[in-house]
């Protein structure tokens, strides 16, 4: 642990230096005008543009195209031969919530099964060593879902940059999670039927509570199925103001999720959806986006129909697909998950959308996910195709700020380049 601490403090010192420059009156890095020239730009909002310029100022994209006026004094970055994409958005991220995957060091879960009011945001550690590693994979924005069965809590959306949680947070409650997979059977007393009944009871009680708050306060109302603060936390979802992210894998669970979305007129997003391909047209018809892990193909009793072209089949049916990744290699492998979706039939453009504009649209992050004037300047300069192993992120900007690409791993590598140590 000592090693970790010391590396971390070194890095914190580095950040303090940057902050000091700001205080001394140098223009904040994000406020600089930067022109990235000569690269092939994938704005996602439209077709790729060869030999284009991206102009950024004050943390925002100002212009994108082949005919951009570069103001005098702008910092120029030559990106000839490079690929430029928006920063990627990982919709099922973990980096920052605790210390890697260490037991007892997680921050994404609290006890119990009815926790709609729980938000893991204040457990995010901006100095977590996993965040710079995630950025090397081009991830600039993350949704951090809580873990646990049934109603585990709220999903904060963050940028992977900043010294304090407030610097990172884009939206505190980007979604509420409901787990309808096999993991939640116990919450329903041992049967999916029980789980669904309990969801409806909670939703109905929340609506009842909202209608009759004065009666509730006078205790002139029948006991409700959860504490008031938990029912209160369900209301934005029931009023259509917040996304309900429903985890489900089996076809019957996915159909149950669609029933809830229809009955309560919810803004639903499906998560995981291993057997989604079996009801792709239903999902498309309901206009519900799907967050999935495209490499999940091993059958189990929470999804015997697992197959590698789930993403492809859903997309072909017209579903807005969002790609996530869950292997122990970490968030940085999101781009390879997208590449593997292409390997298994998805178009390259759809796969890029699936880690940029699609998650932005699904979770109400409208300022993110594309390179257009006015959008937040999260972008990555790649040595080549970002989905393939031969390419790497060469520059990563978050809110117009160039982020360091050194990590705990690169420091270890450089220490042990030659053994035995001198």
């Amino acid at each position: 642990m000592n090693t970790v601490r010391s590396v971390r403090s070194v890095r914190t010192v580095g950040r303090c230096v940057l902050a000091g420059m700001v205080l001394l009156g140098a223009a904040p890095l994000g406020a600089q005008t930067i022109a990235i020239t000569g690269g092939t730009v994938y704005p996602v909002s439209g077709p790729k543009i060869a030999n284009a310029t991206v102009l950024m100022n004050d943390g925002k994209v100002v212009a994108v195209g082949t005919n951009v006026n570069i103001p005098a004094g702008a910092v120029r970055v030559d990106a000839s031969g490079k690929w430029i994409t928006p920063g990627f958005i990982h919709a099922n991220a973990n980096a920052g919530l605790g210390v890697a995957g260490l037991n007892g060091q997680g921050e994404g879960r609290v006890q119990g099964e009815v926790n709609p009011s729980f938000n893991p945001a204040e457990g995010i550690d901006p100095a977590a060593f996993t965040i710079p590693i995630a950025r090397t994979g081009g991830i600039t924005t993350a949704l951090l879902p809580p873990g646990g069965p049934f109603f585990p809590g709220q999903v904060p959306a963050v940028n992977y940059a900043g010294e304090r949680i407030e610097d990172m947070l884009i939206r505190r409650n980007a979604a509420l999670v409901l787990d309808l997979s096999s993991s939640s059977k116990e919450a329903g007393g041992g049967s999916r039927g029980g789980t669904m009944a309990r969801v409806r009871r909670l939703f109905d009680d929340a609506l009842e509570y909202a209608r009759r708050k004065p009666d509730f306060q006078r205790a002139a109302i029948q006991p409700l199925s959860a504490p008031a603060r938990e029912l209160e936390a369900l209301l934005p979802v029931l009023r259509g103001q917040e996304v309900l992210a429903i985890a489900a894998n089996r076809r019957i669970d996915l159909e149950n999720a669609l029933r809830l979305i229809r009955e309560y007129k919810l803004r639903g997003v499906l998560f995981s959806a291993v057997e989604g391909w079996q009801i792709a047209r239903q999902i498309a018809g309901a206009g519900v986006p799907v967050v999935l892990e495209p490499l999940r193909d091993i059958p189990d009793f929470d999804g015997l129909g697992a197959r590698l072209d789930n993403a492809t089949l859903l997309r072909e049916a017209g579903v807005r697909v969002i790609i996530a990744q869950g292997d122990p290699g970490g968030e940085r492998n999101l781009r390879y998950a997208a590449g593997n979706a292409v390997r298994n039939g998805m178009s390259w453009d759809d796969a890029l959308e699936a880690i940029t504009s699609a998650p932005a649209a699904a979770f109400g992050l409208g300022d993110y996910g594309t390179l257009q004037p006015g959008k937040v300047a999260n972008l990555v300069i790649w040595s080549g195709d970002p989905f393939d192993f031969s390419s790497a992120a060469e520059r990563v900007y978050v809110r117009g700020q160039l982020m360091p690409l050194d990590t705990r791993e690169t420091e270890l590598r450089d220490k042990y380049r030659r053994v035995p140590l001198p």
Partner: protein
Amino acid sequence: MNRSVWLAGLLAACAGGQAQAPAAPAPVPPAAPAAPAAAPYTDTLSVDRPQYPSTYKRRANPPVLIRNATILTATGQELSNASVLFRDGKVVAVGASVPAPADAQVVDGTGKFVTPGIIDTHSHLGVYAAPGTAAESDGNEATNPVTAEVWAEHSIWPQDPQIPLAIAGGVTVMQVLPGSANLIGGRSATVRLVPARTVQEMKFPGAPYGVKMACGENPKRVYQNRGPSTRMGNMAGYRAAFIQAEQYRARWDKWLKDKKGDPPARDLRMETLAGVLRGEISVQNHCYRGDEMAQMLDLAKEFGFKIRSFHHAIEAYKVADLLAANGTAASVWSDWGGFKMEAFDEILENAALVTHAGARAVIHTDSPDGIQRMNQDMAKAYYAGVRAGIPLTRDQAIRWITANPAWVLGIDQLTGTLEAGKQADVVLWSGDPFSVYSKAEKVWNEGWLVFDRLDPKHQYKTDFNIGQTAPGVGR
């Protein structure tokens, strides 16, 4: 939410889980090939009756000629526009122009690549089978810190639906290991990935047994109440077991020489460990930390055996010189890490640095997901090394998943490269196996076409798949 659904499963399967921790690798000498001639394994000397012999039979096949392909031979060459011919289960010729025999099936390899069949030194397929119920959790005999008496092959379920998924990834041979709950977890089995009803039909003829040993966190966590509960307790446990094994071996050696009186009592646990001491059974050692690898190399010296490979050797790069000097291989991942304390110091350049130091690196999986895309793990580790400026060739990288694992399993005289006389374990790739977009298109296991992406007739289904799962191999 989904984290619990997705990650929990993954991490349980790999290094974290109590029930199924990964195994450790074993060792090898410097990049130079030629493995120490593994004594053909003939059961332990203390018994002369047959013990669960292989009933694997090579399938008769017409000769196959792949033409116009790029061939990565794993012997130092990458041949463009070349051909490979195999017949009767053996590679006949590899080169720029190989004439087609009249009876050959000719496969046009234009734009495609050919490699040896992929070999995984670390799998739990069959012993932790899908669909992942407790009923099939057969990988850790976690009832005693030393269970050298158990054999992984007695747990392998040939109908594990993960097996055809691995075949579709170009894997032809794997070592199935017991889990890492125990200091000494039992014997491994080296098997061919072929459709089979019994594990005997998969057992690789002539492959020596390995024994799974585990360092570090897993054994001391599993046995914290009865011991060992510390790393020093782990070491004491290995030493006590090998001291006993030395005595057992001496008793048998004496009896075998004199043949006087009744033979000593058989002890399955000791038979395995005596096999290690005699050099007949290779040590496959789950060991994450470099300092622990050094302890284990000293343990091996104390008792006069070799560690063939460390597995999950996250910190191999820190002791790559020791690995090279001891002829011990490092079976590693490309980028997994951080999921527990002993996995904290994972770096992307591990395989590259181990190779550069003259030790033998292997990419292994310990994962039913990873085993489907071992070429991708190889590519990640290769490009990480190249980007860091570590001298490395594509041939060295392809050996991480072919020739080097063959050496770890003691079958490198038989398979692992494409050269005349080797077994015809061959993969035809749709494109460069170093690219994310490429897929294994055809897989021959000793000449038998066990997978053809373009022909469902050659896409094997296990009994578990029948009537309830989707076609698993995608497009």
